[in-house]
């Protein structure tokens, strides 16, 4: 794992791993999320989404605007569930 390139900083998913699942046919952010958990860490994909879109674009040639973005759901920031459940 020397010189590994981490893409998702929270879940520590590498570029290699992402390319592997793209080769298996995954073509969008939500798919990568389900396959690897990338974008599901504490920050919820704030940093890696753009990087993953660029990797999908580079590996498959699908134009960036056609790659489906991550579905945005509340909460957009980490908050304690206790506060909402009250």
């Amino acid at each position, binding site marked *: *794992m020397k010189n*590994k390139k*981490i893409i998702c*900083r*929270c*879940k*520590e998913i590498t570029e290699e791993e992402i390319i592997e699942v793209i080769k298996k046919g995954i073509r969008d952010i939500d798919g990568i999320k389900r396959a690897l958990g990338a974008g599901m*860490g*504490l*920050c919820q994909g*704030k*940093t890696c989404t753009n990087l993953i879109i660029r990797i999908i674009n580079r590996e498959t040639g699908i134009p960036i605007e056609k790659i489906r973005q991550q579905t945005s759901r509340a909460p957009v*920031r*980490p908050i*304690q569930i*206790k506060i909402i459940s009250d």
Partner: protein
Amino acid sequence: MKKKDLRIYKHPILGDLPERKKIYIYFNGKKLTAYEGEMIAAVLYANGIRRLRRTERFKEVRGIFCAIGRCTDCVMTVDGIPNIRTCITPVKEKMKIEFQEGLGKWKKKIW
């Protein structure tokens, strides 16, 4: 160890750093000087401490990355509660800040 202080006290545009109330915090049990209103991570960086936590999978050390509470790379255990974003959490007198291993351990029940 040589005492480090990386605060920018004088600035050509922003002027002198205003005087603020001095308080103390603890990092891994070690007493550090902080000033009211400073963010936890900023106090640590001012003291030359940039290693804030170690990750779960690759056991890598992490520090500040976005400094505005988005990337969650600077999370540490604060007063027993893990995963606190230290770049946007202000210091409090006698706050206990700990280097976090993985996703941290809960020492305290919050509800």
